[in-house]
């Protein structure tokens, strides 16, 4: 029987939703779903992972597993993989997912498929390439387990109400020791307002907003609509206008709200993959050639500094807020 494992991103404040998406898919591919949860928060994650179909959860709450290089986690996972021989291991396209999967590939010599959107079997993955214009099916060969990194929100999580057995894991130190990168300081970006994950409406700003002040126009519109989160393109984040937590795209969040409004975003590939699954897409841009207009249900070509306040005023008029 096919043995599918998933990597669960865990933290003291809970399990990342990606783990439930992966567990749901893993269940559909093979009968026996193992989840690997390494780091503080792992033991608390067992119940929720079982609820989503994991039958076994390999856990350790050891702090060393979350050191910045992910070497300890990767070598610990490599030892588990060598012992239990899963056919495929699914990873989320997250910071830790990338680091652990990338390191693991170097240890095991098995192939790593990134940006997958589906897994027809343990030997096949499907991925969107060329900016989402083409879907390819890829045969996975070479030594097992095949490593597959899934795009977020490729599957709807489905709770089946099962229970998982927790298996305690011994931390494996990589060759040459583990404490190579020291964390001098950690700053958490305070989240404010509705999260990008759950909001019905997402307003995102890019380079066209001209600076951090431009985001105020989005905040005003968000307040008028309600249940609205604010996001940003990589250009706006890299320019330091807004924190990384707001980034939407390949290297940020993937969102699928009812309405997505992009202001001053060209819609490069990097951004498109994070938002094109939105139910309705509105784009405001001064560039009539911007790729985002091809994704938009409604594209408005013009000056966003005029259009956005006018929309805010119109929404206020209709809602009385």
């Amino acid at each position, binding site marked *: 029987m096919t043995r599918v494992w998933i990597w669960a991103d865990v933290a003291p404040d809970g399990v990342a939703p990606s783990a439930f998406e992966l567990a749901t898919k893993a269940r559909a591919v093979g009968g026996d779903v193992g989840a690997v949860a390494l780091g503080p928060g792992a033991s608390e994650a067992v119940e929720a992972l079982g609820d989503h179909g994991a039958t076994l959860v390999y856990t350790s709450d050891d702090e060393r597993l979350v050191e910045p290089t992910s070497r300890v986690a990767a070598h610990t996972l490599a030892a588990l993989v060598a012992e239990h021989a899963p056919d495929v291991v699914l990873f989320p396209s997250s910071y830790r997912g990338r680091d652990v999967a*990338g*390191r693991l590939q*170097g240890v095991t010599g098995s192939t790593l498929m990134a940006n997958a959107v589906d897994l027809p079997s343990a030997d096949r993955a499907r991925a969107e390439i060329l900016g989402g214009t083409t879907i390819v099916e890829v045969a996975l*060969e070479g030594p097992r387990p095949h490593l597959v990194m899934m795009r977020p929100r490729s599957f709807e999580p489905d709770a089946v109400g099962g229970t998982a057995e927790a298996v305690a894991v011994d931390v494996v130190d990589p060759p040459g020791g583990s404490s190579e990168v020291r*964390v001098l300081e950690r700053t958490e970006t305070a989240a404010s307002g509705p999260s990008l994950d759950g909001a019905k409406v997402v307003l995102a700003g890019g380079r066209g907003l001209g600076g951090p002040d431009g985001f105020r126009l989005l905040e005003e519109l968000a307040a008028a609509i309600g249940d609205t989160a604010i996001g940003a393109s990589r250009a706006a984040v890299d320019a330091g206008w807004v924190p990384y937590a707001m980034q939407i795209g390949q290297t940020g969040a993937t969102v699928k709200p009812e309405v997505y409004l992009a202001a001053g975003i060209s819609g490069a590939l990097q951004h498109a993959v994070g938002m094109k699954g939105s139910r309705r897409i509105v784009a405001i841009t001064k560039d009539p050639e911007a790729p985002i207009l*091809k994704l*938009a249900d*409604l594209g408005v070509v013009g000056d966003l500094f005029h*259009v956005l306040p006018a929309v805010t005023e119109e929404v206020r008029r209709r809602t009385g807020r």
Partner: protein
Amino acid sequence: MNIAVLVKWVPEPQGTPSLGPDHLLVRKGADGALDPGDEYGLERSLQLVERDGGEVSVVSMGPEVALAAVQRGLAMGASRGVLVTDDALRGADTLVTARVLASALRSAEPDLVVAAVESTDGYTGTLPITLAELLGLPSVTFATSFDVDGAELRAERQTAAGTEAVACSLPALVTVTTGVAEPRYPSLKGVMAAKSKPVDRPSLTDLGLGEDDVRPAQRVVSAEAAPAKTGGRVIEAGPDAAAEIADLLAEARVI
């Protein structure tokens, strides 16, 4: 201090890339350039050696046309280039690429390996980390700034929760976002000088790699067009634009 910057030739970012009959990206005859994402880490590396002394090399694997990307790096100020080209590498997956680059870097023994967080065409974002594992190096990913102080790397990095300031001793590998530096344009003098800078072209045999080491374990078996979006409307920003957007919000039942 010796810094090796990984660079990649990518199909022209503004162009329309296509797949050939073998389901691989058409690279021959396609317009292409140095991946713009690679210029940020290269710029920062050049700044560091200009301040502290040392040398920057640009290291790449790719088809013959990729020489243009290496030369762009040299024109910006790198001292030497390495380009590994071989027909057997067509369709290489990230593991094969990491093995080739690891072999090319092993003999150079750089103090620091710098790479972009991800390429602009493939977006896999795992190659540098696999490379770090093969080389036995510590890695700092998603750096928004980095500096070298003696034999120590210091960096600020993005994490899912916020930011981290980290430090580690060299040698090390760092992957960088576009925030680390504003890339310079190569000067005419730089472009001319690039032509006489050494570019090492090792063969797979030179690198000690055999057929088994470079056999990709991913094979595209079919390709189809993704369902295209239809029915979108584009309007000029006029007096009705705000009302049209509000109508859409109302249709979606969010106001």
